[in-house]
């Protein structure tokens, strides 16, 4: 397969219904009203030369090369800014047009490196192609005038430039500060595509055109280096640039890629589709795919650029074994590692019982891989001891939405936001954690939608260039349920609920019960304000806006779920949506923003100890029979152990072996010291990962994992979209993860013979009603589909609960606020909450191994100026962060983004390990840890805590690999 070149229609698609027919160069074309002539021509197969137009952006009309002639009209209008008309007769080629275009192009070239006869950049840019298409044969304007091209030094010393040295007063040096792309101003033709992409597509407004006339040039912020500017490195400008002024460094260094493979990003739950562009067996760049239904051609710094971890030298490519965790690692063959693991697991089960081992599936791996791990546990281990990292993030979403609406997933597709009037954002920071979707939210906000932000921190969606929240409720961490009940109180007591909707689609009795509950004066805005630390009137206003402001959509993240009342808060959100009738159509809904690429999929695939794929309880005989018949074994009807229970059992001595695929529980799970104790107590810990991660310090067997570039399969994003992952390069460690799991199953004596992940999906489809229509063929044909995908919805279901809630009737649940047991007091007077930053991802195993460290080299503690002053802490000081669990040290960032009494940090770096200070409190329903609230104290510090020192030593010890014995 060659390089995929997507057609650029020049201007965006018109979405009006009425069709218009015109003739372009003798061809008849029918397009929707409002379409540009340029786009209509391209749809008819006629490419009009262009420089400033691209179909990701509205037309601009500045480059003057896309001119056409229209019969009956004077002049030569620009085809990008001229709309089609019925019966129009357009000519794109004529002597006059050729002459004008050549003249314009000559002017461009006279101030461009190609004018010097230099081969600028790749030589394969759109500019180069257009110069060729227009047929430029001379440059009558010469290159002796004032220009942007060659530095004075070069002119004087190297004799590169003809004429006088003074001619180069407008030269600007190349900006190489961004780790991933360069900006060469000499190649800039001031078409503004980058500026418009940054504003309209990304919504950051980091770029501008400086100056006027001949001196004008694109610059970042106030003519700053890109890396120091407001730029978030999403890559939209690089993608939009028609010259090589903005170009990926990898392309400049290694040359143009030769082939593309369309695949799905393996970072967050947005699930962007990319073209992986490859030369030989090396990925040169990732280009966002315009047909991607969740990203529509946009990307963020992680998906677009941060894939270097796949070839990082830290990757372990050989299986390894050791007897004790204090021994150095010994590289072994796959056969030896698998045989040893199988033997150990069988020994442990024989010695300590069938339930003494288990597995953890990964939200980073494919559906097929996750399915195999849970199948291995249920069929091979004979128990239900399987859990997944969703335990620590969105398990309350599954529980809460299932209880109220009857499905464990978000209700909408991302496109739905285009019809939203009021967004209610709680406990999520999309501009950092879900950047591509955040860009779409911002776009909708700039179009006039309004947003209510409930978050202890002043995030970018509260206020950033060109967007501002209607209301920001900076609640105290841990009071989500109180604020949601407070909002409900206003909606019910002011009769802002949608009685007709509730009577049709919800259980009226449940509503009445809930309405009575929330109407209690205890939940009035005034009382709520006391609990949450926000203004009562703002609560009233926000409630009225959500209930009566048109289409109201709720978006939430881990700031809702990772609490002792996470499940209650999710139900509180569903209550609000149902009460206001904001369910079951475009523009509304309850939308969890999933953290990981496949956290939805790993939950769907039966990763929980009590559920088979499709959220069916293991105790249900009819469901168990499906799998018993297929797998030929009797299955356990008792739910297995959750991750925290496995660790507890390990400490107690009843749980002794674990297979962990692609999750670093030591770093991502709460109360690190407890996790460490649990792992240390086990006899066979098998870590299947890309790197010797933190958990691997306690492992006895290491199986090398494969990146998303090295496998086929599917990921399911936050909108239930099943996206295809295609193998781009061969697995670097011999096996894709699904193959490794299959080999382990075989070593355990199971008769597994999958030859391709599509066969695993066939098995999933055959056994899971919500997936029964899914095949790889369908996904290849459609690009992606959203489950449920079955006989009733053969092409999937973008919006759920239309004409009726899946549960039958929507269920309202009382949401009594119970303050967490984690309370501030004299010793620990501040509340710590945690989150992410744009350039890093989760525990950072991948992004720390890429150029992204340019933006976030360490975790910082955000603290309000008042709290900092009280403690004598200045910006950048080392501080000790201590809680009832433990302590760690990091640097302080003094900012009023956080309220007084609240501190905030990220958890991307193992040196900091924010999770050593978090507690072991968990959600009452799902054991999801309460990461978002910890009572802490901050004090000035000189350096690493005792814990960090010990940890560093242990890290060095535990990562020794005895290279001498490597099997050659």
């Amino acid at each position, binding site marked *: 397969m060659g390089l995929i070149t997507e057609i650029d229609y020049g201007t965006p698609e018109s979405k009006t219904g009425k069709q218009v027919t015109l003739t372009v160069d003798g061809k008849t074309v029918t397009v929707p009203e409002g379409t540009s002539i340029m786009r209509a021509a391209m749809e008819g197969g006629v490419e009009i030369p262009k420089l400033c137009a691209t179909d990701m952006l509205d037309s601009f009309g500045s480059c003057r090369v896309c001119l056409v002639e229209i019969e009956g009209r004077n002049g030569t209008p620009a085809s990008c800014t001229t709309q089609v008309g019925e019966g129009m007769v357009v000519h794109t080629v004529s002597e006059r047009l050729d002459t004008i275009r050549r003249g314009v192009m000559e002017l461009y070239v006279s101030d461009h490196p190609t004018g010097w006869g230099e081969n600028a950049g790749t030589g394969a840019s759109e500019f180069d192609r257009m110069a060729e298409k227009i047929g430029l044969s001379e440059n009558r304007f010469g290159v002796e005038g004032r220009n942007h091209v060659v530095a004075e030094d070069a002119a004087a010393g190297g004799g590169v430039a003809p004429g006088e040295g003074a001619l180069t007063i407008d030269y600007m040096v190349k900006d190489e500060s961004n780790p991933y792309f360069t900006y060469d101003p000499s190649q800039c033709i001031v078409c503004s595509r980058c500026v418009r992409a940054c504003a309209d597509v990304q919504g950051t*407004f980091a770029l*501008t055109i400086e100056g006027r006339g001949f001196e004008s040039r694109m610059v970042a*912020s*106030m003519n700053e280096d890109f890396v120091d500017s*407001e730029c978030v490195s999403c890559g939209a400008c690089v993608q939009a640039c028609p010259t090589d002024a903005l170009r990926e460094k990898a392309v400049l260094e290694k040359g143009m890629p030769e082939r593309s493979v369309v695949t799905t990003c393996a970072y967050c739950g947005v699930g962007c589709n990319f073209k992986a562009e490859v030369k030989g067996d090396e990925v040169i760049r990732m280009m966002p795919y315009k047909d991607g239904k969740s990203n529509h051609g946009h990307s963020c710094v992680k998906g677009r650029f941060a894939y270097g971890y796949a070839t990082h030298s830290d990757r372990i490519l050989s299986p390894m074994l050791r007897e004790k965790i204090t021994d150095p690692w010994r590289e072994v063959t796959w056969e030896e590692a698998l045989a040893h693991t199988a033997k150990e697991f069988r020994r442990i089960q024989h010695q300590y019982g069938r339930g003494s081992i288990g597995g953890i599936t990964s939200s980073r791996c494919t559906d097929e891989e996750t399915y195999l791990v849970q199948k291995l546990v249920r069929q091979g281990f004979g128990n239900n001891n399987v859990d997944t990292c969703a335990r620590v993030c969105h398990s309350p979403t599954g529980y809460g939405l299932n209880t109220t609406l009857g499905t464990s997933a978000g209700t909408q597709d991302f496109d739905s936001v285009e019809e939203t009037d009021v967004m209610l954002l709680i406990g999520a920071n999309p501009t950092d954690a879900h950047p591509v979707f955040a860009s779409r939210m911002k776009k909708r906000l700039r179009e006039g939608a309004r947003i209510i932000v409930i978050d202890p921190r002043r995030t970018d969606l509260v206020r950033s260039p060109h967007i501002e929240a209607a209301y920001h409720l900076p609640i105290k961490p841990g009071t989500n349920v109180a604020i949601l009940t407070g909002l409900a109180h206003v909606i019910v007591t002011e009769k802002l609920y949608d009685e007709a909707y509730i009577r049709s689609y919800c259980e009226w009795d449940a509503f009445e019960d809930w309405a009575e509950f929330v109407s209690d004066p205890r939940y009035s805005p005034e009382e709520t304000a006391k609990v949450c630390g926000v203004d009562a009137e703002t609560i009233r206003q926000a409630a009225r806006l959500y209930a009566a402001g048109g289409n109201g959509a709720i978006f939430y993240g881990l700031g809702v779920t990772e609490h002792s009342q996470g499940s209650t808060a999710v139900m509180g959100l569903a209550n609000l949506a149902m009460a206001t009738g904001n369910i079951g159509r475009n523009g509304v809904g309850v939308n969890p923003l999933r953290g990981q690429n496949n956290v939805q999929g790993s939950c769907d695939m039966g990763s929980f100890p009590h559920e088979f794929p499709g959220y069916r309880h293991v105790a249900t005989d009819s469901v168990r029979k499906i799998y018993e018949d297929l797998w030929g074994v009797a299955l356990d009807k008792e739910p297995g152990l959750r991750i925290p229970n496995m660790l507890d059992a390990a400490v107690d001595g009843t749980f002794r072996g674990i297979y962990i695929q692609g999750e670093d529980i030591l770093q991502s799970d709460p109360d690190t010291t407890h996790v460490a104790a649990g792992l240390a107590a086990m006899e066979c810990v098998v870590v299947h990962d890309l790197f010797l991660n933190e958990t691997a310090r306690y492992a006895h067997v290491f199986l090398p994992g494969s990146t998303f570039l090295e496998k086929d399969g599917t990921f399911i994003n936050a909108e239930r979209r099943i996206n295809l992952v295609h193998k781009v390069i061969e697995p670097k460690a011999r096996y894709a993860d699904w193959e490794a799991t299959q080999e382990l199953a075989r070593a355990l004596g199971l008769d597994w013979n999958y030859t391709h992940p599509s066969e695993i999906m066939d098995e999933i489809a055959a056994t899971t009603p919500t997936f029964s229509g899914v095949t790889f063929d369908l996904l290849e044909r459609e690009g992606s589909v959203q489950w449920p995908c079955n006989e009733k919805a053969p092409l999937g279901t973008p919006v759920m609960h239309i004409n009726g809630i899946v549960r039958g009737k929507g269920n309202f649940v009382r949401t009594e606020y119970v303050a967490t047991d984690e309370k501030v007091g004299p010793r620990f007077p501040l509340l710590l909450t945690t989150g992410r930053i744009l350039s890093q991802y989760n525990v950072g195993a991948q992004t720390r191994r890429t150029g992204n460290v340019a933006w976030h080299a360490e975790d910082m503690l955000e603290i309000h100026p008042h709290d900092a002053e009280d403690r004598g802490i200045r910006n950048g000081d080392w501080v000790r962060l201590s809680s009832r669990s433990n302590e760690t040290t990091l640097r302080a960032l003094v900012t009023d983004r956080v309220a007084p009494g609240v501190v905030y940090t990220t958890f991307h770096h193992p040196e900091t390990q924010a999770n050593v200070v978090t507690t072991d409190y968990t959600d009452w329903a799902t054991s999801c840890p309460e990461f978002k609230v910890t009572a802490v104290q901050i004090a000035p510090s000189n350096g690493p805590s005792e814990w960090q020192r010990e940890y560093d030593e242990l890290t060095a010890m535990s990562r020794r690999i005895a290279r001498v014995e490597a099997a050659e």
Partner: protein
Amino acid sequence: MKMQPSGIDIAARAASIVNEMRGMEGPLLPILHSIQEEFGHVPQEVLPVIATGLNLSRADVHGVVSFYHDFRKVPAGRHVLKLCQAESCQAMGSDAVAAALKQKLGIGFHGTTKDGAVTLEPVYCLGLCACSPAAMLDGEVIGRLDEDSIEEIVQEVRI
């Protein structure tokens, strides 16, 4: 000449100007004019203050400021002399007028004399084509420049 305030004063004063004027329709240009009036130029450090105040990006503000030559990056001299260099004035000898003034003042276009007395700038049409060659001194237009009026100007700006 106004005292040059320190960096903190500039930011604080700029913030109060932004606060006073942010309610206007299209407030950016009026704010920039007020800033220039206040400080004699538009200091770089006020750009982020304006950006924050108006909820724009720094790039947005920089793009606008750099587009208009009348917004100065550094303070001008006590007097500002603008010489028209547009077509009509060129036809009536503005080149020679410019050369004479540059020579007498010892500065080029966009330059300020060492004593801070005067800044010389080209301008492209003052709308005084009927009285070419034309100039503008501290906001007052002067038409039909000749040797005498040039000498007068030089004397005046030296004060």
